[in-house]
């Protein structure tokens, strides 16, 4: 005789969504969206709001790979941008200037073997194999807001390790004030580098104290998976309170310097892109407002937050600085 003992936490079979219904969940939401559209056709803002929530519904739910609570940004989980948007809408000019170019052109990009050179004002300059560069560090899942200088934004579940951990490991000299990051320069693999859109290779930089901030991250994965090529594989950095262009992708070199690095966008258009690139709704880009942003995957704009919502943690880095001058 079979005796079935139900464990206290078991999910009753009646609670389980049928597979068919699970697969049809989008139809359901679609229908909900249509009803929303029909009932809300009193004015465009209302319609927009209804459609907005329908679209968000389709993209919500727990994405793969970061089901456990993340170390930072758990509160952002409900608004995480879809995998398709995170990996299909990219600015990575090395693979073309269109937003969909990187996903198409980076498909065959070789990220192994990969060497990262650490040089300049450090006690332990060295060439690291990527594996050795990452291995000593504990990888964390973190959900960050991502704000592009072009006034769109995402919420991205990154995986990586604090930049500070690496910096301590290589021991900067007291004279080191800045970090300079350099992207791979290989026009055969990166067709965008055949055109002088920017000065190649792409160079970005941070002040040492910014790089040591616990939010600054070296990133090796997204959505719990290995970082896709179009997102800056195999190694990029992310500084969530700065505009996206401050993040250097496919990093091959990290140099510790005493002087402020010449960064790619600052060199290309100094009046539009400063060295700092801090998200600031009060300082407009010369050609567009930075007061609001369009969250990718939604229809309505939302206000942009000071330091991209990380002001309480990072504002101290810039106390006494004129943020209009140091944009």
């Amino acid at each position, binding site marked *: 005789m079979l005796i079935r003992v139900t464990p206290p936490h078991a999910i009753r079979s009646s609670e389980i969504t049928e597979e068919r219904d699970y697969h049809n969940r989008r139809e359901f939401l679609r229908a909900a969206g249509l009803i929303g559209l029909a009932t809300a056709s009193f004015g465009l803002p209302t319609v927009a709001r209804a*459609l907005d929530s329908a679209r968000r519904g389709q993209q919500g739910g727990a994405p793969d790979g970061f089901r456990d609570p993340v170390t930072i940004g758990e509160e952002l989980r409900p608004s995480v941008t879809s995998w*398709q948007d995170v990996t299909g809408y990219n600015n990575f000019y090395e693979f073309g*200037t269109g937003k969909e170019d990187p996903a198409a052109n980076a498909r065959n990009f070789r990220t192994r073997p990969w060497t990262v050179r650490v040089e300049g004002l450090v006690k332990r300059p060295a060439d690291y194999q990527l594996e050795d560069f990452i291995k000593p560090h504990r990888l964390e899942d973190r959900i960050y807001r991502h704000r592009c200088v072009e006034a769109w934004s995402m919420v991205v579940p990154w995986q990586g390790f604090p930049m500070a951990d690496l910096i301590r490991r290589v021991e900067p000299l007291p004279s080191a004030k800045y970090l300079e990051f350099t992207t791979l320069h290989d026009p055969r693999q990166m067709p965008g580098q055949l055109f002088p859109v920017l000065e190649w290779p792409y160079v970005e930089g941070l002040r040492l104290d910014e790089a040591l901030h616990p939010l600054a991250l070296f990133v090796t994965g997204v959505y719990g998976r290995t970082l896709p090529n179009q997102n800056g594989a195999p190694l990029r950095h992310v500084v969530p309170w700065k505009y996206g262009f401050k993040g250097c992708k496919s990093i091959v070199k990290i140099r510790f310097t005493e002087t402020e690095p010449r960064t790619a966008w600052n060199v290309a258009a100094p009046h539009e892109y400063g060295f700092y690139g801090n998200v600031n709704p009060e300082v407009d880009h010369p050609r567009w407002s930075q007061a609001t942003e369009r969250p990718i995957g939604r229809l309505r704009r939302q206000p942009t937050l000071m330091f991209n919502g990380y002001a309480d943690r990072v504002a101290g880095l810039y106390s006494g600085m004129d943020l209009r001058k140091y944009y």
Partner: protein
Amino acid sequence: MMEGARAVAPRGAPPAGENTAAPQDVRHRSTARHIKPPRWLPWVVIAAGCLPAAWLAWGFASDLLAGTRHLGSNPIERMEHFTGDWNLRFLALTLSVTPAMKITGWGWLIRYRRIFGLFAFLYICLHLTIYFVLDVELNWGALVEDVTDRTYITLGMLGFLLLVPLAITSTKGWIRRLGNRRWNALHRLVYVSAVLGTIHYWMAVKRDITDPLIFAILFLALFAWRARAALESRRKRQVIARARSASSA
């Protein structure tokens, strides 16, 4: 109408409006290019001109309601770029009609100039509607700030405003009311609008100017053709005038 325009404005001014009975003479003159387009051709052209707008509307609706990704991750930006592109494409087509007609001798092409011009206007209207409703979200304050503070939007808006009187006066009634000479003069504003549209596009792109550059080259080529044609006709007139004065002397 075309020959009529010649009669009124013999100084090589481009013909006004659309042909009605005109191209008979043209056809007689260029027997080698004797072509009679089918009657339904204009309707096919009009349907084709609507296709991009129809595709866009369908794509947007499908993306919103069915979760497809026809317009990519940033559908509003895509729709703005798409309609702006089609405005410039139709402006280029509009400005290509006169050269094409002169080169081929196909007088019947003239009626497509108005069709293309109105399509250019349709797409710029869609461009502005999408910008104002979906991008600026009906916020008049933000619209005013954009138009006054951001040069590329100021210029773009000006380019649009210049097309409004042209669309209004595109009817036969208005051609009659204004007379060919004044109508032609007014409709030269289309050149200014094309220049403004191209500058607007050029200034709007972040770094990669390839696409606006293509339009700039296209428009420059069309302007160059006109400048050359104008010079040539002036030279011809001078020769004729000289010959006349010689014979009368």
